[in-house]
């Protein structure tokens, strides 16, 4: 072996070793950042019984149910205009005697005042035609009656609840619908029916008034009071309902997770009527199927978790 040769070989070897080191380093670095992707079976979500229990996934059978669809509105208590009597003297004269003051309850036929007629000088008494409460009194002893109203008697045993309906709600509301009325602090409630919907609207508020007649035997409803009301739009039995918490939106569509032999399937459904608790299903499920009620979100999360990431 010549000097030149050995020299070359050795130098080559050295370069080789260097390159080996380089290779090692670059390979080592190439390994960084790889993470394993988990394969996911499309369609069904498979969970063990243990997982279902641990995750607190609740199951229920699809069945029929009552849907009480309500429309909440605001309103105000008003006097029943049919139960107001304004009393004036039949013959002009001077007032001899007044027996009732503002606030006094009166019964039908009860004497309110005694008048001496100017022409006949006969005395006669003015009587109430309804049961009610004196709300106005314009009569004092010695005064001339002239033609003015001496008393206004209002009957509060039933009152009107005047509900404001906005344009959007109008088509849903009709006469005879049941209405539940709450006072502002919800301490008093009453039930009634819509008896009238005004054919004209209010210019300022763009509302239509719907009227509900409610009994007020102990005077808890005072005209002028604000109220909340719920108009029952429907109260029917639907053949297929699911609990509201079962509904999830996946890729823009409502789905219900249905338990099948292979696992849970996110089943697209079309929704019908709905209330605070249950929703009617029009398509998607048939009777007897078992669906996920509570913690249905966990299944949605399980479906999409592969894409979950922590980006910056």
């Amino acid at each position, binding site marked *: 072996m010549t000097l030149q040769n050995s020299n070359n070989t050795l130098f080559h070897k050295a370069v*080789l070793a260097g390159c080996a080191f380089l290779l090692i*380093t670059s390979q080592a670095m190439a390994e*960084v950042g790889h993470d394993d992707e988990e394969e996911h079976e499309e369609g069904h*979500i498979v969970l063990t019984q243990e997982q279902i229990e*641990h995750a607190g996934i609740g199951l229920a059978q699809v069945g029929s149910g009552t849907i009480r669809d309500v429309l909440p509105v605001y309103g105000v208590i008003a006097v029943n205009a049919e139960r107001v009597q304004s009393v004036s003297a039949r013959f002009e004269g001077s007032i001899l005697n007044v027996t009732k003051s503002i606030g006094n309850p009166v019964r039908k036929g009860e004497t309110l005042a005694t008048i001496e007629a100017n022409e006949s000088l006969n005395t006669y008494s003015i009587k109430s035609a309804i049961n009610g409460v004196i709300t106005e009194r314009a009569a004092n002893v010695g005064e001339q009656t002239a033609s003015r109203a001496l008393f206004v008697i209002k009957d509060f045993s039933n009152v009107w609840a005047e509900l404001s309906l906005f344009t959007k709600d109008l088509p849903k509301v009709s006469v005879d619908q049941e209405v539940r009325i709450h006072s502002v602090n919800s301490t008093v409630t009453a039930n009634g029916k819509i008896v009238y919907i005004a054919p004209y609207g209010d210019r300022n508020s763009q509302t239509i008034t719907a009227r509900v007649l409610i009994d007020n035997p102990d005077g808890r409803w005072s005209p002028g009071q604000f109220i909340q009301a719920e108009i029952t739009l429907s109260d029917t039995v639907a053949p297929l309902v699911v609990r509201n918490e079962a509904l999830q939106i996946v890729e823009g569509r409502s789905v219900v997770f249905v338990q099948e032999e292979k696992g849970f399937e996110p089943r697209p459904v079309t929704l019908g009527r709905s209330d605070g608790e249950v929703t009617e299903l029009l398509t998607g499920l048939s009777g007897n199927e078992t669906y996920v009620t509570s913690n249905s979100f966990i299944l949605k999360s399980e479906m999409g978790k592969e894409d979950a990431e922590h*980006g910056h």
Partner: protein
Amino acid sequence: MLDKLIQFSIAKRYLVMFLTLIIAALGVWNYQNLPIDAVPDITNVQVQINTEAQGYSPLEVEQRITYLVELAITGLPYVESTRSLSRYALSQVTVVFKKGTDIYFARNLINERLQQAKSEMPDGIEPVMGPVATGLGEIFHYAVHAEKNALQANGQPFDATALRTLQDWVIRPQLRLVPGVTEINTIGGFEKQFHITPDPTRLLAFGVSFDDIVRAMQQNNANVGAGYIEKNGEQYLIRAPGQVADIAAIEQVIVTYSQGVPVRISDVAEVGFGKQLRTGAATLDGEETVLGTAVMLLGGNSRSVSAAVATKLIEINKTLPKGVSADPVYDRTVLVDKTIATVQTNLLEGAVLVVVVLLVMLGNVRAALLTAMVIPLSMLILMTGMVETKVSANLMSLGALDFGLIVDGAVIIVENCILRLAGRQHHLGRILTLEERFQTVFTATREVFTPSLISVLVVILVNLPILALTGVEGKMFTPMALTVIMALLAALVLSLTFVPAAVALLLTGHIAEKDNVIVRGAKRFYAPVLEIALKLRLLVLGLAVVFVLFSGWLATKMGTEFIPNLDEGDIAIQALRIPGTSLTQSLGMQFQLERAVLDVPEVKTYFSRVGTAEVASDPMGPNISDGYVMLKDRQDWPNPDKTKAQLIEDIQQKLALAPGNAFEISQPIQLRFNELISGVRSDLGIKVYGDDLGQLLTSGNEIAELLGGIEGAEGVKVEQVSGLPILSMETNREALYRYGLNVADVQDVLAAATGGEEAGLVFEGDRRFTIVVRLTEQLRSNLTALERLPVPLPQGGYVPLGELATLILEPGANQISRENGKRRLVVSANVRGRDLGGFVSEVQEKVDQKISLPPGYWLAYGGTFEQLQSASERLTLLVPITLVMIFALLMMTFGSAKDAALVFSGVPLALTGGVISLWLRDIPLSITAGVGFITLCGVSVLTGVMMVSAFRDGLANGKNIDSAIREGAMLRLRPILMVALVAALGFLPMALNTSTGAEVQRPLATVVIGGIISSTLLTLLVLPGLYRMAFRKPRIAVENAAAIKS
């Protein structure tokens, strides 16, 4: 010059000793200031600008805040890149500065610009810079915890709000004062708020609006100072208190007069304590908790800071109400102590072994001790150097230190001094005079100084490519290379100055130069073996070549990893759910996880942060949680020998019990680093820049489809930018005109109802609590109720919100990422089974051909492939250059290419031993192992140079080639064995240790030990033969030997 230095050291030996003492003292002093941590800090110079904007959706955050912040910082000097993230209620802009920029200077620059940007932002929006900290900053976590039966002063049990109040107003202010702590970050619980929750019906009944309540609160909740008056020589200060102090006072505030009747807040609303709309929560062992995190100031010493925090916390605990305590759940000290203990044990045991070797081989106690002195001295000089170069002491930086290697230079010098001193004594037959002793020490030092100088230079040279690494790799390994270089230089200087001085000072009297049993045995064994090796030199050489080829082949078959992971002892689990998961839901799922994992007997506690903390150093959505699983001490495990991998498997099994979560399992520091460096962590990231999110997504999906079809692509992912369910209110302008309303009127009603409106503060001493006007939770979360919200009309009366606007539920932008001032979307992919470069160029070509982007949109390529490419390019260039430089160095030394090549031939053989030992121990190749190979180069060159120069000396002295080789080899047997033994034994503890941190050092130590064995064998057996074969013209050798001597 070197001669002068050595002569000076010997002559002024007391001065040298004194100077050494001073330098040592300086080292001790510097050691106190040395930042100590477990791992090197790989965070870049960055400033985060966080802006909180309660109630803003990602789109609004981007438009009204992020853009302005980005605009403000455009054009700042030294900026490398900016990136931003806009998500619900948070804008985060991260500005990355060029390496070496002073962080305080950078913050000043930003601060200046932010002032301008602030004026253009919506009222009450305040951009804040993140804490001055790095990824290693989160050093201490504690959980505020109340016992079940502990009661507050008002008789209520401590709830999440009460605990949060304690954290915010008792614990945090005190901990912030601990030196070295820059921030106490809080997550979990609820900030205490006073809530005024109006009832829409009652508002209508009284004709009062949300705004009226807010205005009334603002006008009835202030103290006023009114100057002073003088009276009879005295000065009276005047104040007019008017602040509300409690719920009762708020209730009494009058909102309006309605026909002479005052309407109080209590008439239209409920007042009580409420919960903030939080963006994050914390859990501990399946329950809610309040979690505090101490963040260390940049450049701090994590061990002392976290120890100080722990001490302070104990003090604070004494002042907390009965039954409440703040308990540490994570303390960096534990890890740092363990790691440092490992490094210390390794170094100490190594040092002891080295001393033992010296004692045995030199047979002279004084000589052995003075050589050993080089170890602490060079360590102390290293400390000074590390403080000066701002390298922190950690597993990586101290991990590659081998005391054997450090003392190598001193060893050969001392060994030769003893040899020559004893020889001279023997020759003269008497004890040497002072002058003679000095002369002998000088020549002996000078004689062997070249090999040790060269070996140091070689190690420095081979470390150069490491210094050229950039990015994360650079931050990891540059300190390692730096410390090795500094320690070696220190040792080199010491062996030039301290060692000769000490030898001259200490090695007086009679010096016995007789080999002890071991050396004699070795020589007796070596002589015949050398004979055989010389005779069968061709065979030996052939075997060596085969050996090199075999291990080269072996190396390609071995597994690789970047760096061995430091086992932090604890586990971090990041749990991810789909975007749009609510905080409450996420918490619920986190509880399920924690309860499941707590069943693993080795787990002590499991705490997590869900969503974003108060200081958004890590802006996570509520769908993500960072969990920390703290393990019990090993001796408390049912099976203390269980491996970490097994344990993680157990935990994974438990995690699988809770469906709906995806996991990423790592370790606390690792997790934090990943979050901070972020950027694109895949091999290839194609960034699409543009304006329209929809278009970005369309293009992104097209690219992803294309990528998926290219061979080698794996895990192709499009950045998740959408999927957050958004309830948006679209106003019907016609309806608004009909009622004479503005869009803002409707928006305000919705915002006040769901988001709430701040209406002032309630003060309790230092504590201040916000007053918020907001709808009750029941109404806020009910879509139908929102549609019925009354909007007051200017002419009186109201109209429900549903009449004026439509509420639509739709998926919207989850987060908007921007980079360098433009929206961007990343399509990322990893590459398997194919070379990265080829893959990337194929992708670029195909994308150019098939993807057409609308005007104003463009692409950029990024990802780890960039680093990989630049690192590869650098190394391809630097490694050969380094090798050439080493060769040139050797050539300069010997003046002969042949001799240089002979010495050089030791390198590949040394590497073979390293490869084989790795393979035997089943350790994959990694950069740490690579550093081991670098060290090996140094050792093998050192021994080679010693051997070859001995041969040449022999030739120069007129011996024939065979006897020159034989005698030279016998002469160098002792120093070579010593050098090899100290270097190998110095690393032995490191190779065998199993405690925390050992896994990082193990590959390095294994490589060096294996390599030294092969390299020593080579030097002793192959090199003499090789030299004999290469020996042709004695004339050149003689000349050169003469040249080197002069």
